[in-house]
């Protein structure tokens, strides 16, 4: 055992978020830690990383040595436990080398940093993880997956001299484009090959089945099971996670009508190398996808006026709008709702209450003369939260106090309440657990059934294949193919995204 935790509990006020959880991590294994949002995964990781103190009674051994609790962040590393957080905690403007060496320069004669030696060591470390880049390159110039690998290399460097260490990867792939994931998998195998144990926290079940040896599943703060992955398939995992066999994740397919409701004509702007046009019919769900940076997300934000287009027209509900003059305010007035990615960055203010967040775009409807009718506002929000099964449906809680899936449901309620004539979404299921995901899909499909056209930009190819009627695949700033009908499968999307990649890069 490289890590053995016993009776991990945590209570916030009256709320028990973690109850007597045990966890064993073997050397050389990838161990998946699964659970819905709010199941206690993050709390457990934060205790192991030294951010939270566990309740008394907990015990922790790292590398066979008993460790005093609570840990502080520095302690964990000393004992042979390193954590790579979801945001990676890299300084983007510094070079890879500087990032690897932050806080632990090996100095000669006390003060001079021997950069050349450092660079040589760094290059060797990187290339053993399949990353052949100059250590002087700055982190912001790297692709996301390369950054993730740099973060892993740095974590391992911190554990230098430890034989049987443990590495915790907290949702390392949540923000990664799909095409780079194999690189990360290879890097993770390299880590386990050195005898380290890897605890992989993730929402992506296909990663678990592909990569993990065993899983531990948490539900409502308690451990439900620890099992060998080989005996489980994705359905089995889902059942463990939600506690019952999940009904079909995706609602049944439907049929769009022929009338075009939303029309984009010759949209141009940064990252788009060719004018983009799109017609969305009544009840239709259209997907925009591609590798990250190919322009599909930009096109979505330009349609909502959140980013300035240089030219183009947008037609909705009989009115024509000049895309170059569109801003979020006009777009909203025109009947467009945009659910952006990155919940707490673009979606809502974490410390503001649910009411304040949900009613922000519709605030004028709660005003009589100059006065905000707060009781009415609160009632309306309460009804919306119930309607979208937000847990807990308490309109006075700060948004950030909810789990990720519930935050997303609340933000979806915010945009649905504007009564949109067209709904635009970017990564609507980012960091959302399976249960909430199903509810979100249901709501999106219902809205479409009522006639509203929906455009979703996403890199979740499997979801796009299930949810959409047509998918536009972008490469190098323009649409290279439109998939629909029998052609619309996850494999086809991946293939279209990656095709010609070598020649395009050259």
């Amino acid at each position: 055992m490289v890590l053995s935790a016993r009776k991990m509990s945590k209570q916030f006020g009256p709320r028990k978020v973690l109850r007597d959880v045990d966890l064993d991590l073997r050397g050389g294994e990838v161990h998946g830690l699964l659970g819905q949002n709010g199941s206690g995964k993050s709390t457990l990781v934060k205790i192991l990383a030294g951010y939270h103190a566990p309740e008394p009674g907990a015990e922790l051994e790292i590398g066979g040595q008993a460790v005093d609790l609570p840990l502080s962040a520095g302690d964990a590393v000393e004992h042979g436990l390193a954590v790579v957080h979801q945001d990676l905690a890299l300084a983007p403007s510094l070079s890879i080398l500087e990032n690897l060496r932050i806080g632990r320069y090996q100095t000669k004669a006390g003060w001079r940093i021997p950069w050349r030696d450092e660079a040589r060591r760094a290059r060797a470390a990187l290339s053993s993880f399949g990353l052949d880049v100059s250590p002087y390159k700055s982190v912001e110039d790297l692709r996301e997956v390369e950054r993730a690998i740099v973060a892993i290399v740095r974590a391992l460097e911190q554990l230098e001299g430890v034989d049987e260490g443990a590495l915790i990867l907290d949702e390392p792939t949540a923000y990664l484009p799909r095409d780079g994931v194999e690189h990360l998998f290879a890097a993770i195998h390299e880590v386990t090959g050195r005898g380290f144990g890897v605890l992989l926290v993730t929402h992506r079940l296909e990663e678990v089945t592909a990569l993990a040896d065993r899983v531990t599943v948490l539900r409502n703060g308690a451990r439900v099971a620890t099992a060998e992955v080989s005996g489980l398939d994705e359905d089995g995992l889902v059942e463990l996670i939600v506690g019952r066999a999940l009904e079909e994740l995706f609602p049944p397919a439907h049929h769009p009508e022929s009338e075009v409701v939303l029309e984009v004509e010759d949209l141009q702007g940064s990252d788009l190398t060719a004018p983009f046009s799109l017609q969305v019919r009544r009840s239709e769900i259209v997907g925009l996808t591609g590798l990250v940076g190919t322009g599909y997300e930009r096109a979505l934000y330009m349609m909502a006026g959140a980013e300035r287009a240089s030219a183009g027209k947008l037609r909705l509900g009989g009115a024509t709008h000049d895309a170059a003059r569109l801003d979020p305010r006009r777009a909203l007035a025109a009947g467009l709702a945009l659910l952006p990615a990155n919940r707490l960055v673009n979606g809502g203010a974490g410390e503001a209450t649910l009411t304040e967040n949900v009613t922000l775009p519709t605030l004028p409807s709660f005003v009589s003369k100059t006065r905000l009718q707060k009781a009415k506002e609160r009632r309306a929000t309460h009804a919306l939260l119930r309607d979208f099964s937000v847990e807990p449906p308490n309109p006075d809680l700060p948004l950030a106090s909810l789990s990720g899936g519930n935050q997303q449901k609340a933000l979806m309620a915010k945009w649905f309440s504007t009564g949109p004539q067209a709904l635009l979404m970017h990564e609507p299921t980012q960091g959302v657990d399976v249960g909430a995901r199903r509810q979100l899909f249901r709501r999106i499909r219902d809205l479409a059934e009522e006639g509203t056209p929906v455009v979703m930009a996403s890199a979740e190819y499997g979801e796009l294949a299930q949810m959409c009627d047509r998918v536009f695949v972008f490469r190098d700033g323009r649409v290279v193919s439109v998939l629909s009908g029998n052609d619309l499968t996850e494999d086809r999307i991946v293939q279209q995204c990656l095709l010609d990649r070598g020649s395009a890069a050259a």
Partner: protein
Amino acid sequence: MIGVWIVMIIGFSIARPDTFATWGNVTTIASSQAVLVIVTLALLFPLAASEFDLSISGTLGLALVLVGWLNVVHEWAILPTIAVALAAGLIVGAVNAFFVVVIDVESIVVTLGTGTFLGGLALAINQTSIGGVSEDLVNAVQHPLLGIPALFYYGLALTLICWYVFSCTPFGRYLYFVGANRNVARLAGVRVARMRILVFLLSGFLSALAGVVLAGSLGAADPTISNSYLLPAFAAAFLGSSVIVPGRFNPIGSLIAVYFLVTGITGLELLGLSGWIEQIFYGTSLVLAVAISRLASRRRAS
């Protein structure tokens, strides 16, 4: 904080019953701090929108000197004088807004510059203290009501108006979102640039108003006095954000904080600690106030 305040009042009253616990002391505290209340309210608007305004004291000083110079030296009537002083505040706000919002320079840099500039400008207009400001203004400001000079009630009334704006109007809500997450506000259709311009106009106007009230309260215009308002206003605004609506800048909290701070200072001075205690107390309070509000919001977050 209110608890600490009461303990402080009781403590000082026991220690100095003959000076601290007197009606005279209460009215002095109540009225002498009304100007600070108005400046703090001025500061709340930019702070709520996550902008700094370090030019509030410079604007106050400019308005103060303009009142003395126009009214006494140039013998203008008092109403046009006040109008010019308030307009000057709006102009300062517009200049700040231009550099911060249009040119996109950090507000802390812009207002540090304009504030310093205004301090110099006030001295350039008039180097020495001018006495003999219009009796009408002096009376309007100092006329006692229930034994307390009228300016105390002005501060109180303005606090209530600002409270209404902050917590009962859509403007207040938008202001909060512009400060809490500008991007979210923008995507929800809030006119973020317009809001940011408005907060500088408001802080310029209210700071100038504070200068006019100060002119009436002193009956004179002293170009050097304004600097003593900057730090206390920041201390009160941050300390005020830990009460009433914890974690948010709010007018009533600020009003309480102003009087909390001055109670402490007056008490300590009456105990025999002389003038230097004021700077030490305000300086310490500012840092502690911010630290406390950080800790409070961290506890809420977890």
